[in-house]
């Protein structure tokens, strides 16, 4: 409910692959073998993924729905995110406010996230609360009641969320960069909608959008924790299992336009420091290039030992912080570099970043860098699986963004990437055509709130 877009670095999310596969390879059969996450499709089309995980006596349940900002028509901007809020506002049998009381009364927590490609609802409860939580998610998933007073009341909350993002230069720069790099593709639209659109929002389009996308055939339920598959399946059969499957066809918009010639925006901001965000269009989640682009992004700017950190921050002292990120997304990926600095360094920092990238294009990366990036991938996964909710998120994102099977093979595929392929990715994607957002200290133009 608090989050909107999740901009996870893909590497962390997808690194589990070969791990689970390796488990199978070393113990291929028999009662002692490591169970892969179990994936079943119910007769109504709901995908159920389960995995035992006993780090704590809790269970994480995540309902992933294949709907997000990209599914909105221009007149529906912000509906995916607004729905995310409204699902917690009650059903015919659960009055407003009671859902939070129920979850927290069990000693649990809840949250939800909307991205351009998917929306997910997360609950973590002590494992004794499994049945209650499954029942709740099934009810929220198809029976949300949208009380008119709650729709009106939530508008103020969403306006606050818009302000909150604007006050955070890092988040706001990432958002502005996405809008600049993708426009007019749906990925370039504001995920929270516009103030005018939200102000005018009524119950009818909200409910229509909900009925269109929130059907079991368009959902994946991921359950990870100190529970058995049999218990989960029984709870799911008695709830989700009784629902009609429905049908959903997701429209595929035309691909995002190329950034030929580059795109540039300077934004006046109240902070004393400047922010520079640069974005290059790159492979989408289902393309083979995604593996090499992941490694390239890590080598460029993931850690203190990365090239951008060592050159632009440590050697040249041009920036206070710098990092690179890769969000593949389903319909077109984006590699970004973002940095904070004294405003006087903006030009030199951008030139230094371009120089670091040029060197990778011209000279490639070392085998040691490639190996470090692989270890980092493995490490991200290992830390992700420390908690039930971390593992659930990895599985849910894999299922809805690519496929669970692709996810399970991920690390193996990554290992097959050569240094030459990493260099080729830099040549293919990180050229001179990029989007650039700069936050520069200064007053907002007259008559405008930033």
């Amino acid at each position, binding site marked *: 409910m608090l989050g909107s877009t999740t901009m996870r670095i893909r590497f962390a999310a997808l690194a589990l692959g070969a791990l*689970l596969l*390796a*488990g199978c*390879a*070393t113990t291929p059969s028999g009662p002692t073998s*490591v*169970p892969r996450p179990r994936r079943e499709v119910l007769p109504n089309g709901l995908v159920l993924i389960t995995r*035992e*995980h*006993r*780090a*704590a006596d*809790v269970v994480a349940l995540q309902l992933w729905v294949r709907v997000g900002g990209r599914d909105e028509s221009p007149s529906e901007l912000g509906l995916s995110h607004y729905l995310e809020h409204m699902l*917690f506002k009650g059903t015919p049998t659960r009055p407003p*406010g009671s859902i*939070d*009381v129920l979850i*927290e009364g*069990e*000693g649990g*927590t809840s949250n939800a996230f909307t991205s351009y490609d998917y929306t997910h609802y997360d609950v973590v409860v*002590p494992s004794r609360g499994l049945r209650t939580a499954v029942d709740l998610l099934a009810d929220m998933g198809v029976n949300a009641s949208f009380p008119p007073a709650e729709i009106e*009341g*939530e508008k*103020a*909350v969403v306006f*606050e*969320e818009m*302000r*909150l993002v*604007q*006050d*955070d*230069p890092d988040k706001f720069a990432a958002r502005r960069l996405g809008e600049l790099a993708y426009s007019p593709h749906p990925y370039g639209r504001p995920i929270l909608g516009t103030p005018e659109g939200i102000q005018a929002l009524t119950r009818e389009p909200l409910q229509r959008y909900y009925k269109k996308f929130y059907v079991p055939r368009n959902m994946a339920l991921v359950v990870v924790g*100190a529970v058995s598959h049999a218990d989960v399946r029984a709870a799911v059969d008695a709830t989700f299992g009784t629902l009609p499957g429905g049908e959903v066809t997701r429209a595929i918009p035309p691909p995002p336009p190329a950034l030929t010639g580059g795109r540039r925006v300077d934004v006046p901001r*109240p*902070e*004393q420091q400047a922010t520079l965000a640069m974005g290059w269009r790159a492979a989408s989640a289902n393309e083979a290039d995604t593996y090499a682009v992941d490694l390239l992004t890590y080598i460029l700017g993931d*850690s*203190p*030992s990365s090239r951008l950190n*060592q050159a632009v921050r*440590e050697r040249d*002292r041009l920036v*206070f912080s710098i990092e690179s990120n890769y969000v593949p997304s389903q319909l077109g990926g984006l590699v970004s570099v973002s940095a*904070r600095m*004294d405003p006087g360094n903006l030009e030199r920092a951008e030139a230094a970043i371009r120089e670091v990238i040029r060197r990778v294009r011209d000279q490639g990366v070392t085998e040691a860098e490639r*190996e*470090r990036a692989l*270890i*980092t991938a*493995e*490490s991200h996964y*290992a*830390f992700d*699986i*420390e*908690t039930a909710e971390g593992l659930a998120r990895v599985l849910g994102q894999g299922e809805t963004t690519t496929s669970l099977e692709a996810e399970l093979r991920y*690390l193996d595929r990554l*290992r097959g990437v050569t240094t030459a392929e990493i260099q080729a990715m830099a040549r293919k994607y990180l050229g001179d055509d990029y989007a650039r957002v700069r936050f520069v200290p200064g007053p907002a133009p007259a008559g405008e709130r930033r």
Partner: protein
Amino acid sequence: MIRAGTLALAAALLLLAAAPAPAQAPRIERLDNGMTVIVRENPLAPVVALSLLVRVGTTWERPEQAGISNFMHALMVKGTTKRSGAQLAEEIAAMGGKISAAGDSDFSEIKSSALARFWRPLLGLTAELATSPQLAAGEVAGERDWLLSRIQRRRDNPRARAFDELYAALYGAHPYALPSLGTAAALPRIDHAALVQHYRTYYRPERMILSVSGQVPGDEVLAEARKLFGGLPRGGGAADPTPPTPPPSARRLVIEQPAQQTQIVAGSLAPSLDHPDHAAVKVLSTVLGGGMAGRLFAELRDRRGLAYAATSFYEPVPGPGALVLYLGTAPENAAKAEDGLRQEIQRIRTERVSDSELARAKNYLLGRYEMDRATNERQAWYLGFYTLAGVGADHPARYRRAVEAVTGVDVLRAAQTYLATITTVVLEPPKPR
């Protein structure tokens, strides 16, 4: 290397599927030189986390050298007598790890983590950083600039600034008033010699607690820790200060800062971690602002739409604590939101909380506590912190019992005692002229 990693992780997954609650009780050892070492074997995931806590932080600082502990740690991670900062970064990255160091109020921490199979080199690098940092004079100016940039960034962040202003107002002459990053006025006065002296004074074994949690062999970790740290000589005691008790004060400060949101932060002095009222105030804080069913969220955000963020904080600290209520709201709603906040304070000081609300708060509080301790990094920190604070590494079980025993009368009494005098900071955008 890679292949070995795969097998190690596969083994970890085997363990994942095994029986619940496999983590061992922590083993605690006091070395001859006074240093404490704690190891918790946790086979669940193939990772390891280290926390080295040292008794030095803002509690030992004066306003004119505020931030020296954090500054010293920023300098420490720039390299050791054996390797440069870049080498250190590369070696850590090759373990799939990370390492960082920072000052806090009652302690400073070097924390590190990596894939579990690298626990030995990780411990070695962490020890090297702690016992033989380069503390190079040539790095001081650059690190100072970087820290000043972080201070500016914090000042530019409306929420962070509002909290800093509140703590300054609430704690007055007590060192908890000082930000651990320091101040823009103090950092330029801290030179290389002062940083080296600070290190020599406080980096002493009897002031250090090393905690390790992860998929590690406990015996071997203890032996390695003895080898790496056992030779450090005792320091002979840097004097620990006795900070003045901050007097409660009812103040309201309004600060202008350009932003989209208005920040409202209201706080009062509260009990320390070892105080008998600690659990009751934790429950009080949770009733008011814990989760989405907490009163601030349910009433001010959900019912009245007056705020986006609506929460409360009461962190465990060895010294005087602070109970802080926080709202982030639209400027046009700020007056109503602040009024609503005061009504909630008044209500909880006069009406006993219902049994069901009390049960929700206690379940939520304890559930969150369990989840917060699910990772090895947090486990390592908690073990070290509870030892440092003097309540013992076995504190969680006692804390749980204390929370379960809290009654509605206890919450009412805690509210009357600790929410009597409120300091408020309102950080708002300049009004149009």
